[in-house]
């Protein structure tokens, strides 16, 4: 305890011995840590945006399909309406909402043009909590019930079809007997998705209306389930998978959409790489500061050894000095990052560059996402790497020969 106390006291006082040098190094650590965390928060915000938008673009957190639906997403691979067991599994506190849908490929024809789309029959009340459509209505109205006869189209599809709200279009698809099933729909609303390509891809109708058009009774193509947190769906997925049994395939969002889950994994890797890269830049300054500090104190180090301080304790003193410097830098760097992100919580308007980012699913507003886990990771990585970087000058100091060190001019 006595040795630890003297080591810490010496480390602290030696740290401030060259005030200017320590302050400059400290400023570099603070700015480096701030840059690490601020940049990570921006990247996390962007990826969160992509993931949430991706998840809101229909997958939900867990999805139930006919086992063949993903290979052949047509009306031939349907599920029966959910039974009691499945409804019981879905009626739990960790399920925020669930919605059964009919989803078929279709062609929408206006008087001027036609386009291939994915036609989705939904129960609007259930769907409102799960997917983007209800929130993103730009014109007209949303569906009022599963039996609503209207059709919702995306803004870009409406432009391509050269039609508008109030006009009629014909929707054509195949029924289970491989016969053409078609029907006229009036466009009752237009939505605008965060990613414009989505606006061309999906058309929404009432679920019951679509079931009637296809003649499939109460069968559905999929059931989408929204849990509490997209990062923790494993237990939800397992419970629903058990309730659904063998007749259905149950998949969490990260298996359903490999692009999105890959993005999340890539982000975690990026965070670590970014922290290490920034630290490497900092480490040159850190090691230089410590080498200079050791070089200036050769005689003192020799003296302490002569008085009986063991080499390991000398090493500990230099490392402690380094960790104190980094600790202070980390504290102020974290605080600075937190303070600078608070005013940006409402989001940063990146509409100037969002056209280029749209392909990746990034919207017009970037909201930084500051996570305690990322701050802790940056802190731990900087301390661990700082410890390793300080070993070289510390080992050098601990290997001095007392007689040679003490007679150093």
């Amino acid at each position: 305890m006595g040795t630890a106390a003297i080591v810490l006291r010496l480390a602290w006082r030696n740290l401030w011995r060259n005030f200017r040098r320590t302050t400059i190094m400290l400023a570099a650590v603070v700015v480096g840590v701030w840059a690490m965390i601020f940049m990570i928060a921006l990247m996390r915000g962007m990826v969160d945006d992509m993931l949430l938008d991706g998840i809101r673009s229909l997958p939900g957190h867990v999805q139930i399909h006919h086992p063949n639906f993903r290979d052949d997403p047509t009306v031939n691979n349907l599920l029966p309406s959910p039974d009691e067991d499945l409804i019981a599994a879905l009626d739990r506190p960790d399920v925020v909402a669930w919605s059964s849908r009919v989803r078929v490929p279709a062609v929408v024809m206006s008087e001027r043009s036609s386009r291939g789309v994915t036609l989705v029959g939904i129960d609007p009340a259930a769907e409102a909590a799960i997917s983007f459509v209800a929130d993103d209505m730009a014109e007209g109205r949303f569906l009022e019930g599963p039996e609503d006869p209207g059709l919702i189209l995306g803004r870009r599809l409406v432009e391509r079809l050269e039609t508008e709200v109030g006009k009629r279009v014909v929707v054509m698809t195949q029924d289970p007997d491989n016969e053409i099933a078609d029907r006229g729909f009036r466009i009752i609303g237009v939505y605008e998705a965060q990613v414009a390509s989505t606006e061309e891809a999906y058309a929404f109708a009432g679920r019951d209306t679509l079931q009637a058009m296809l003649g499939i009774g109460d069968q559905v193509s999929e059931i989408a389930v929204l849990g509490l947190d997209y990062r923790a769906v494993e237990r939800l997925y397992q419970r629903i998978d058990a309730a659904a049994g063998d007749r259905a395939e149950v998949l969490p969002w990260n298996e359903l959409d490999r692009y999105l889950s890959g993005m999340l994994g890539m982000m975690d890797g990026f965070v670590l790489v970014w922290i290490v890269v920034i630290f490497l830049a900092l480490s040159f300054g850190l090691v230089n500061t410590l080498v200079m500090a050791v070089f200036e104190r050769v005689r003192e180090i020799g003296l302490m050894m002569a008085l009986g301080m063991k080499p390991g304790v000398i090493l500990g003193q230099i490392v402690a000095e380094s960790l104190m410097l980094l600790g202070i830098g980390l504290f102020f760097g974290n605080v600075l990052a937190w303070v600078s992100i608070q005013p940006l919580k409402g989001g940063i308007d990146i509409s100037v560059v969002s056209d280029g980012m749209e392909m990746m699913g990034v919207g017009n507003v970037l909201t930084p996402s500051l996570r305690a886990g990322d701050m802790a990771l940056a802190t731990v990585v900087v301390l661990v790497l700082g410890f390793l970087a300080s070993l070289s000058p510390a080992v050098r100091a601990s290997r001095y020969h007392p007689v040679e060190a003490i007679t150093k001019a």
Partner: protein
Amino acid sequence: MHAVRCVNVRRVYKQGDEDVVGLDGVSLEVEEGGFVCLRSPSGGGKTTLLNVMGGLDRPDSGEVWVAGERIDTLSKGQLAHMRLHQIGFVFQAYNLIPVLTARENVEFVMQVQGVPTAERRKRSLEILSEVGLDGLEDRRPAKMSGGQQQRVAVARAIVSNPAIVLADEPTANLDSNTASHLMELFVELNQHHGTTFVIATHDQMVMGYARRLIRMRDGKLVEDIEQEAA
């Protein structure tokens, strides 16, 4: 018991490409409570002998015993432990730790030894008072004169009751008045505490205080005489 015993100690070190014989078969015994001066011209071997006695340097051959323990075969860590508990050093240049106050410098060795805070504090204040530094306990070395710094170094050397105090040219940077005061302090500590002193010097005034005077030349003991101290 002998405070220090050297048996046929030889130490050769490199100076450029040349081998320099620092100690050439030195055998020496210093009794507990002794007050010994080593004198020699520069390069005569007195500092090398002090370093070997203090476990700061290893002999190439021969044996070195301190307080009944053979130290020339100890590991680095064991030597550090031995120095911490058995040896007090006073160097030519005051060699205090600049970021510590006078009291903290004196407490340094005790703190590394693990002496409890209250006892450490009590002993350090007592010893600082004994060496005439009342009221200067909280000053850092930069704010003290050379003589005051050397007194702090002496206080640090004796505060934990070492078996032996090794002083290498302790008066070299002091004026004659301060040097006399320091030597009187050494004598007083030697007489009242029974601390063994081995002092390397070529200062005639310092030699006058010693009860035993050992003359060295070219790494060998050439004269060893008892004398009446001043």
